[in-house]
């Protein structure tokens, strides 16, 4: 007689770095433990060792197929720190302009096409409609085209300055490789104006489709998708959100500041916990310590990404986004917001901020200054860089010899920062929804929604083929014997094989 059963929700192939959900049942068929596996890259540190540090912005961005611009920027900033060099103001602005452009593109993509099936189409919609075509059907072909055109124009701008759109190559210690001409500035301004309009339009879509539907709002604030944890995000000198630079601020479950530190001191504040049942490292807030997968001010669990960033900041630096920020907190009952699914809304607020920030920087007269590089002269030893990636705080840390050759490299990526809370969310959803061996499509979707809101990104994500693969759910005895196999096909149908568990 088995003591536990083990359910694995696992895509058959690696596809866009999909995580795997493991659900372990006890002998009564109740959820004992559930967790989210993040496939991790192997060998990165070894690969980095012995390479010139200047290669890191290229290498780290090439490793990641999902947010290369974020790695490129975090790495470039780590090189600034490594060589103790401050980029000229124009270089800094160019970097933030490109970074804002990237954030608009990435957030728009997520809202419409990755998160859209959950909230634009709706969590209660038939499975067969919860996909990109369902989103198009809901928002209309014209809107769909508008998203695609906007995305293309933003990517063209990133490619213009970044050199390559897939993997930008413009970041150098102390500046950037290329400036912006007056003609190019005009293109940036035009595109940024349109991006702001596009972001306002997207906020309207969110209002009309999500907020106008009481059942969606009810779901967002439901207990199954709520955790009271610490939150982390980058802020500027006035504690306003910034994606590109600033101090890392941590607030508690009561929204009060618990820490504020620069990238150089991240190891004093971030530590990693290891569990025997998972190879994922769970980042936690070191001053509080690891107390397990629990909510509350005495637990070091924290989270990053849009929900966390809005909680960690005192406001947004641009007017339209600030208004959207205030509405967000007023509607959801004040600060902080603990509802995981509110990430989708927070992402739209951030989209508006990124677009407005892009417009500010594009219109800045200094953006076309040719003074874009401060040459490094210091002997390198150690450097840390941090940015807010779309999916959360991203740290790069390098140690080198006196020639700038890497001795040690460490990255803490967004999904790692979120891993403890993601695990808690998956477990809570599974415990609330799963009992015994009845596994319905609705269950799978609700459990998946618990982690999709974080937009988890996995290091080994390289590309996906051949698209919508079925999910495989295996109910296992503790001996490993597969008792039942459930296959959810691309049309949403569920097929069951094997003996009843």
């Amino acid at each position, binding site marked *: 007689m088995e003591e536990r059963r083990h359910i694995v929700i696992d895509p058959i192939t690696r596809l866009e770095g999909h995580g795997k959900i493991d659900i372990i049942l006890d002998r009564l068929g109740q959820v004992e433990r559930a967790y989210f596996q993040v496939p991790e890259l192997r060998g990165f540190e070894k690969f980095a060792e012995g390479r010139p540090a200047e290669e890191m912005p290229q290498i780290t961005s090439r490793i990641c*197929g999902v947010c290369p611009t974020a790695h490129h920027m975090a790495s470039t900033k780590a090189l600034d720190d490594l060589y103790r060099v401050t980029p000229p103001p124009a270089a800094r602005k160019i970097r933030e302009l490109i970074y804002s452009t990237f954030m608009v593109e990435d957030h728009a993509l997520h809202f419409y096409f990755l998160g859209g099936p959950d909230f634009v189409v709706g969590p209660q919609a038939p499975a067969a409609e919860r996909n990109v075509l369902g989103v198009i059907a809901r928002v209309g072909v014209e809107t769909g085209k508008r998203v695609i055109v906007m995305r293309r124009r933003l990517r063209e701008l990133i490619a213009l300055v970044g050199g390559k759109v897939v*993997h930008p190559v413009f970041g150098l210690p102390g500046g950037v490789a290329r400036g912006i001409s007056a003609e190019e500035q005009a293109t940036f301004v035009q595109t940024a104006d349109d991006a702001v309009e596009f972001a306002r339009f997207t906020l309207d879509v969110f209002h009309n489709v999500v907020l106008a539907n009481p059942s969606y709002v009810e779901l967002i604030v439901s207990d199954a998708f709520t955790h009271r944890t610490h939150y982390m995000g980058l802020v500027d000198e006035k504690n306003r959100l910034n994606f590109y630079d600033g101090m890392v601020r941590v607030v508690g479950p009561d929204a009060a500041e618990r820490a504020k530190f620069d990238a150089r001191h991240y190891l004093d504040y971030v530590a990693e916990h290891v569990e025997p049942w998972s190879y994922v490292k769970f980042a936690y807030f070191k001053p509080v310590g690891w107390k397990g997968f629990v909510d509350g001010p005495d637990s070091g669990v924290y989270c990053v990404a849009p929900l966390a960033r809005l909680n960690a900041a005192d406001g947004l630096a641009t007017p339209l986004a600030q208004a959207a920020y205030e509405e967000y907190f007023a509607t959801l009952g004040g600060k902080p917001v603990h509802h995981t699914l509110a990430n989708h809304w927070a992402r739209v607020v951030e989209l508006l901020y990124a677009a407005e920030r892009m417009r500010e920087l594009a219109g800045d007269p200094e953006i076309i200054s040719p003074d874009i590089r401060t040459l490094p002269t210091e002997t390198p030893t150690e450097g840390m860089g941090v940015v807010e990636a779309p999916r959360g705080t991203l740290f790069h840390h390098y140690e080198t010899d006196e020639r700038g050759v890497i001795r040690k490299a460490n990255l803490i990526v967004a999904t790692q920062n979120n891993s403890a809370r993601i695990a808690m969310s998956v477990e809570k959803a599974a415990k609330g929804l799963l009992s015994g061996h009845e596994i319905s499509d609705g269950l799978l979707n609700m459990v998946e929604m618990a982690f999709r809101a974080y937009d988890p990104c996995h290091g*080994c994500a390289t*590309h996906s*083929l051949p698209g919508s693969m079925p999910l495989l759910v295996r109910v296992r005895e503790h001996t490993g014997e597969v008792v039942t196999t459930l296959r959810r096909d691309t049309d949403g149908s569920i097929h069951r094989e094997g003996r009843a568990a």
Partner: protein
Amino acid sequence: MPPAIRVLCLGNDLLADDALGRAAADRLAETAGRDVEVVYAPSAGFALLDYVSGAGRHLLLIDAIRTGTADPGTIHEFRAADLITPAGPSPHYVGLQEVLQLARALDLGAPDDVTVLAVETADEITVGGAMHPLVAAAIPRVCARALDVIEGWRRAPAGRS
């Protein structure tokens, strides 16, 4: 007028067996002929939209795959048309199917015919890892098969068999 045939090779050449897409692209660029556009893309998921849009009539996709059901180096071949069903219920499965559907729905110039040649891998997560000998050995074979597929398209340019 773009070439009627595009070969799209995917994969990350820093990740062990995943480098096969790059190797196949280099090889096919030499051998596929001037009427074929060979593209290498280290891209993922939704970004594939950029590579399937305006692809011409025929698209051949070469990639690494891990099914766990075959030996490394095994070549899986299928046509996307055989797989077209309503897209997956999970939005994180945005991949070839979804971008093809999106390209069609938004009239972005999706190819009519999509054939996939996918080589089974042993390791695609080790940064700087070496390619498995059986996967490396499959590169000439997958390229030869690619040339066969392309030749078939040339002979029946209007065919949608």
